[in-house]
């Protein structure tokens, strides 16, 4: 059956600036906001935008990510007209194929896309926290008769030099692209969201492969090539909350912002829900000694201590007389008694033994890795 639109979520990156948080798992699989992993936002956007055919390109440490995404059923993507498909490196008659860049990853999966035979391909990153209706962007793309539409966001002028910046004419047509320019001519930063006419993009990718194999990255190669050929490239402005949680600091910040019940993301909005793979676990148990304020707690938690302005993901245990403030605790962490945690991120399944103090400073956020054990006598080999 012919599909109008296929979305490709590029989720293969390591996200090395997240340090030990992405040692064993890919960045899009990093937990967020108590009940989510980062990729849930892009997947939910697809589902809410009515795009049910989604390729999820994975490559780096994909076991947890693949398991999380499955066939997309948790996002309602397993309809008769689509589903989520994990796409990973593979070999063929032409040899072994790892993905060398964003555009190269799409090139390697041409067969997958061609099987769906879509008119449009939406290229997304699995790394960002935001809610966006891609269907509206697609409407815009059609209206403009664009061959490429780039999602952009106005950023403060002083920050513009940290982004890939799109210079547009009066009709919003993109006339120039500057990657991290010293003197930006525009404050429209690329969000890494692209809508392409598939047949056109495919031609570019195949031609490049036959020639010099230079089109490996969308920002660095494909957009400049499109500009050179005078393609109809338009900028689609997004105004709303959008966050790249690519560093420890931005991940912590985004979680602290997320705590605000008035947060622009409005996680409780029933009309644009953020779906996830919810674990089947027990209710939250707050004992007599618990003391919780301005915090998010998730099913499976057992809380006997004091929690202030923090997010506790599912199945976290906090012992008596422990105190957690301004922190983000990932799923299945076990925190003993008399523990003090401030301004920290505690990894999945970490074990903080009795009496330990983990306290960030005004400059730095403390991070405990996945399954890391802090304090106590360890009997493990």
């Amino acid at each position, binding site marked *: 059956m012919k599909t109008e639109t296929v979305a490709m979520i590029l989720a293969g990156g390591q996200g090395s600036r997240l340090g030990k948080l992405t040692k064993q798992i890919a960045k899009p699989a990093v937990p967020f*906001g*108590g*009940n989510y992993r980062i990729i849930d936002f892009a997947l939910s956007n697809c589902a809410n935008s009515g795009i049910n055919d989604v390729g999820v390109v994975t490559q780096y440490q994909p076991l947890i990510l693949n398991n999380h995404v499955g066939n997309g059923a*948790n996002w309602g993507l397993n309809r008769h007209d689509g589903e989520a498909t994990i796409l990973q490196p593979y070999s063929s008659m032409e040899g072994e194929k790892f993905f060398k860049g964003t555009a190269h990853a799409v090139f390697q999966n041409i067969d997958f896309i061609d099987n769906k035979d879509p008119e449009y391909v939406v290229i997304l990153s699995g790394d960002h926290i935001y809610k966006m209706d891609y269907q509206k962007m697609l409407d815009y793309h059609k209206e403009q008769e664009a061959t490429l539409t780039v999602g952009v966001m106005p950023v403060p002028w002083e920050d513009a030099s940290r982004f890939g910046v799109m210079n547009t004419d009066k009709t919003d047509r993109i006339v120039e692209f500057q990657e991290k320019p010293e003197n930006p001519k525009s404050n429209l930063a690329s969000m890494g969201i692209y809508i392409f006419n598939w047949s056109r993009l495919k031609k570019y990718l195949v031609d490049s492969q036959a020639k010099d194999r230079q089109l490996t990255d969308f920002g660095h190669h494909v957009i400049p090539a499109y500009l050179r050929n005078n393609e109809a490239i338009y900028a689609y402005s997004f105004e709303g909350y959008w966050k790249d949680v690519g560093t420890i600091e931005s991940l912590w910040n985004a979680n602290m912002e997320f*705590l605000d*019940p008035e947060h622009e993301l409005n*996680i*409780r909005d029933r009309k644009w*829900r*953020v*779906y*996830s793979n*919810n674990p*089947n676990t*027990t*209710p*939250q*148990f*707050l*004992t*007599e000694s*618990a*003391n*919780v*304020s*301005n*915090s*998010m*707690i*998730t*099913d499976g938690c057992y809380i006997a201590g004091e*929690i202030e302005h923090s*997010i*506790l*993901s599912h199945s976290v245990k906090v012992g008596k007389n422990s105190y957690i403030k301004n922190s983000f605790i990932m799923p299945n962490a076990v925190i003993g008694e008399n523990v003090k945690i401030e301004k920290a991120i505690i990894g999945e399944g970490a074990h903080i033994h009795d009496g330990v103090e983990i306290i960030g400073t005004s400059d730095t956020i403390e991070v405990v890795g996945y399954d890391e054990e802090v304090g106590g006598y360890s009997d493990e080999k």
Partner: protein
Amino acid sequence: MRNKVAPILNLVENSDKLKPLTNRRPVAALPFGCRYRLIDFPFSSLTGIEVPSAALFISGSGHSLYDHIRSGSTWGLESRVGGGVFTHSHINLKAELEGTELYTGNYYDDHYHFVSRSNAEYVLLMGSNMLSNVQLDSLMRFHLKKESDVTVVYKKIKRGEVRKDSIHTSLSMSESDSERIVGFNSIADLTDTENALLLNMEIMILDKETFLKLLYKARKQQKDVTVKNLIQFSLDDDKTIFGYEYTGYLKVIEDISSYFQANMDMLNEDNFNALFYRANPVLTKPKNSAPTYYGEQSEINNAQFANDCEVYGKVQNAVIFRKVSIAEGAQVENSIIMQDSCIEEDVYLNHVILDKHVYVKKGARLEGTIENPIVVAKDSIIYAEGDIEKGE
């Protein structure tokens, strides 16, 4: 591949004393413990054994149950390769629907076909009103080791743990073999001096052939296919019946008071752990949800919550289901608040059960007692003036 079991869940259970909570749902669909329904417990226990397919006998439309169970995939009961959940609506009445005949299932035939077509070697009978978490693999091993014709699960309880007029039964064991069941009595018929009893938990395992023989008897005598009746038929036939002792958490859900108590029991860590963490993980239909938010001024003391709540008030000894909001200044004690309920400012609730989607207006006060908690029906609105606008 070995020891496959065909479970039959008898969900046509008496629910009179649980009204109004059971006005529109069977006992099996009663919400419990912030995020479960009673049916989740027997269903979850099935994950411990090899179940190719399960049969449910319900009465009436079973809408709330269907909606919860769907394909059974939550409990691994959905299978594209034969099997799955077969539901039989047992409408025990002469039904005439304007001109067209009603497609009533045939009670005995449905049992017969389910069991004989299943590729299981054993049949398991259970219900949903004995809240517990039984390890069926261990029951199975016991049954095999004893080379029993029939094995029935029981628990030693005090007389006071069930109603005086309970409809359930107490088992009697052989004097020579304390594991062998030789009879049973209605609990209501026990003399006042009998303080301890062996409660028949109405969970039975037996091989397919034996079951089909007992089913034949039930059909011949036009009796229901209940554990009690099958024990009687087995005794009549001199079959060996062994009792398997269950020592975990148990509550017989037979009236509002026991239902209330069962929920409150979970606020005790020992009970909570016994029910949820000692045997099979308890699985329920997954719901998409956001974490629960506890506001700056919230005060929580010994309480359980599901996801998706917003809590700004005081909550003590309470069990709070999904999507409940509790406003600042509100106080909820010793209560069960079901899904979608909304509690406004300065409300005071004590010993109250709010069914789903109840709206408690600013300043309203409701106070029941532990023996007689106030039950507010689904969709009701409660005003500060003491008026209740009934939801049904």
